[in-house]
């Protein structure tokens, strides 16, 4: 045997993998560089010619990526808030105050075995979580987060939203039917009955807003509410807001309407037979749904990204960084070390127990905090979308908290009460609201 192959034989398994991969990676990289150099200009031209397409791809990617931290945050919030309501500690081991527990949950779910029960319809079983997850992710596309920050400004945004929301139930039904489990079947059928019934009052409750604003685009509805606090639709359509919140709770399968996964009755409903990441998708979809429903409530009724009051400071113009020339380089090079030293000094001088390097570490951490705060403050007063995004997220998480609060407080309703409530109370109320709104519009706008 010649020496190179003997050397290869002596390598450990990772060594062999790396040894094989490195040339391939180098070749790929070279090819990529060549491609950029050769095709780059044409590609750029093509992309700039099709800006909406690029925008869509970017938006879809961002939305898809956004769901993960959103779900993690809401899961953590739910665990912690309900724990505090239950007089428990809740998560407190992983990360500060247990804040990384949901990340660990995510990893655990990824690593668990993903099995399909015998007798299940494999294909439908596999695709059900995907359908559920995609349905919730796709609704995020039309949610206006801030001025200019939205996936697509569809002029049928609201309609699209409800259509996609209704698609999710198909996934739940698929999961319930394909699992080959009676609990799952009952859960799936319950969710179909529940979501379909609550779609109607949910949709009817927002028709009043559509009449008022004259558009289905969520972005325009949000813009319509700009101005003072009392331009928000919650003050013009209080009944609609109430109906919307109740129906949205049912739509998101949250307590007290979480009959589809009523653990004391049908174990875990449609998700009984799921494990691993497939279950993770259901789990994610549920929490993303909470976020979406809260976001929609904010966009429709709570003024979206509009601040409840005018920001007292005028928005400053962006500083002319290019005009600083070499000064910019000097500033970037000198300000951080000087600031770190400055911040470290008091600790070193006042606390004799500290070594100098320890004081420096403290200074470094403090500097980072100050710098991030300064950057955020700068962004806050310079770009209106940062303000908008902050307001939107604040309001949305306020609603998320409301949902979590309800989960911690209320028991579950029964299926006949659930359906009776939808058809006997919510639907007439929504129709009444629609009638009154239409009447008011006619009376106000029709010239005598």
């Amino acid at each position, binding site marked *: 045997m010649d020496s190179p192959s003997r050397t290869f034989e002596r390598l450990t398994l990772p060594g062999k993998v790396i040894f094989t991969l490195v040339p391939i990676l180098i070749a790929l990289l070279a090819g990529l560089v060549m491609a950029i150099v050769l095709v780059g200009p044409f590609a750029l031209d093509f992309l700039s010619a099709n800006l909406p397409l690029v925008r869509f791809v970017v938006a879809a990617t961002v939305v898809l990526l956004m769901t993960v931290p959103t779900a993690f945050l809401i899961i953590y919030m739910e665990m912690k808030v309900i724990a505090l309501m239950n007089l428990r500690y809740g998560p407190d081991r992983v990360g500060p105050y247990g804040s990384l527990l949901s990340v660990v949950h995510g990893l655990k779910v990824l690593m668990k075995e993903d099995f399909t029960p015998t007798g299940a319809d494999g294909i439908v079983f596999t695709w059900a979580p995907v359908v559920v997850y995609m349905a919730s992710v796709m609704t995020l596309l039309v949610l206006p987060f801030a001025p200019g920050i939205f996936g697509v400004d569809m002029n049928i945004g609201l309609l699209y939203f409800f259509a996609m929301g209704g698609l999710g139930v198909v996934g739940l039904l698929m999961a319930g039917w394909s699992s080959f489990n009676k609990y799952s079947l009952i859960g799936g059928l319950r969710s179909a009955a529940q979501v379909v019934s609550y779609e109607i009052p949910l949709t009817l409750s927002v028709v009043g807003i559509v009449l008022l604003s004259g558009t289905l685009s969520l972005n325009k509805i949000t813009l319509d509410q700009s101005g003072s606090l009392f331009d928000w639709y919650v003050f013009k359509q209080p009944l609609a807001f109430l109906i919307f919140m109740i129906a949205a709770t049912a739509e998101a399968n949250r307590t007290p309407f979480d009959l589809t996964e009523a653990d004391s009755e049908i174990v875990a409903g449609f998700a009984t037979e799921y494990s691993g990441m497939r279950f993770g998708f259901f789990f994610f979809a549920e929490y993303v749904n909470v976020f979406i429903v809260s976001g929609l409530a904010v966009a429709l009724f709570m003024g979206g990204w509009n601040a409840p009051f005018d920001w007292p400071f005028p928005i400053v113009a962006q500083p002319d960084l290019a005009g600083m020339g070499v000064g910019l380089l000097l500033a970037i090079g000198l300000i951080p070390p000087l600031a770190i030293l400055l911040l470290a000094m008091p600790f070193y001088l006042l606390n004799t127990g500290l070594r100098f390097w320890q004081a420096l570490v403290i200074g470094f951490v403090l500097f980072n905090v100050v710098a991030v705060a300064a950057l955020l403050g700068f962004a806050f007063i310079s770009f209106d979308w940062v303000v908008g995004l902050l307001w939107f997220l604040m309001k949305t998480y306020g609603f998320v908290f409301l949902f979590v609060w309800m989960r911690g407080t209320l028991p*579950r309703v029964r299926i006949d009460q659930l359906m009776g409530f939808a058809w006997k109370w919510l639907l007439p109320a929504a129709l009444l609201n629609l009638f009154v709104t239409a009447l008011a519009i006619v009376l106000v706008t029709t010239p005598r």
Partner: protein
Amino acid sequence: MSADLTTARHASSDDPRVMLEEAVGVFAPIPPYPPRTEREAEFYTLGDGEMFINMGPQHPSTHGVLRVVLKIEGERVVDLDPVLGYLHRGVEKLCENADYHHTIAYTDPLEYVSALFNEWAPVMAFEKLMDVEVPRRAEYIRVLSGELNRIASHALFMGWMALDLGGLTPILWSFIERDEIVDMLASLTGQRMLFNYFRIGGVNGDLNHEFMSRLGAWMSKATSQIEANQALLNENEIFVRRMRGLGTLDREAAFRLCMTGPNIRASGVPLDMRRAHPYSVYPDLEFDIPTRQEGDCLARYLVRLDEVKQSIRIIDQCLHDMPDGPIMAKLPRLMRPRPGRAYAAVEGPRGQYATYAISDGTDQPFRMRIHDPSFVHLQAVGLLTSGNLIADTMAIMASLDPIMGGVDK
């Protein structure tokens, strides 16, 4: 439908495909043997559009290892068949082979939520067999600790009730109370759950300082704390609407079903062993027997709430009237009661706990029958649930408050 499947299973059992399906349970009917009784045959015959769903023995809301086979039509429960025995330990047989003193350790863990009452009934029966006069102080201590245990048990009931209806919080709130009481009893008896405290002729230990100080601290805030916890549920519209008018039992039906305890008192019958057949020092104590006329799940829940208040009243009186004196009657170590029979019943948090003991003159009971209310109450679930929804099964079962440790002796 099930008949077809059964014949298909037997006719073509050499077909490997059918055998495979049978092996994975695709067509396996329940039960896998011919029906033994009329009722079983009726239950395991499916009507049109009906199906079986099996709850337990591992299920989130069966209060232990109970298996319930539900026959459902859509969401509606047509009939149900509880299957017991997953926790059966043969305590009656063990007691027949144990010393009179040993039996207490066997009966004690039967109902682990309110263990003192399962000690009390056999102890009383043996005292009757032996004509023992229990010192008054011991009787007062028994009543005191028993009522504390009753409150702890009812506190847990309220939490469980809410949990079975989907409310997460109340069970953890009611555990505050239960934990305090259970710790208190631990300082008295040395154990948190299975106390093994009552002895034939008295109790194991006298009141101690730690118990008294804990009890005093708890009594000063008990009423307000209990009311705060109860407000969480009583004023909840969803909770009340789900419970009201559900699983209604009238007076006659309650007697026919051999109900005792809060479950029969919720149907308007003031049947409480403490008054109906007085024992211990209860004749000397002042308390009311709360009853309700409705007989539904809400009434069964509210009766227990009222009982907690009465228990606090009794504890208060016990503390005031507690006499001095010995806590154990003078008894030989080895007991050989004269041949005879004795029946003793106490009023526990779930109903009548009773013991029927037969002595044959040796130091072991010849026969020891332990009557547990959970066992009797659980069979009412089937009658109350038929025609209601799946979710109501849990509500009704929780409102009857069976503990599987007591059901499967």
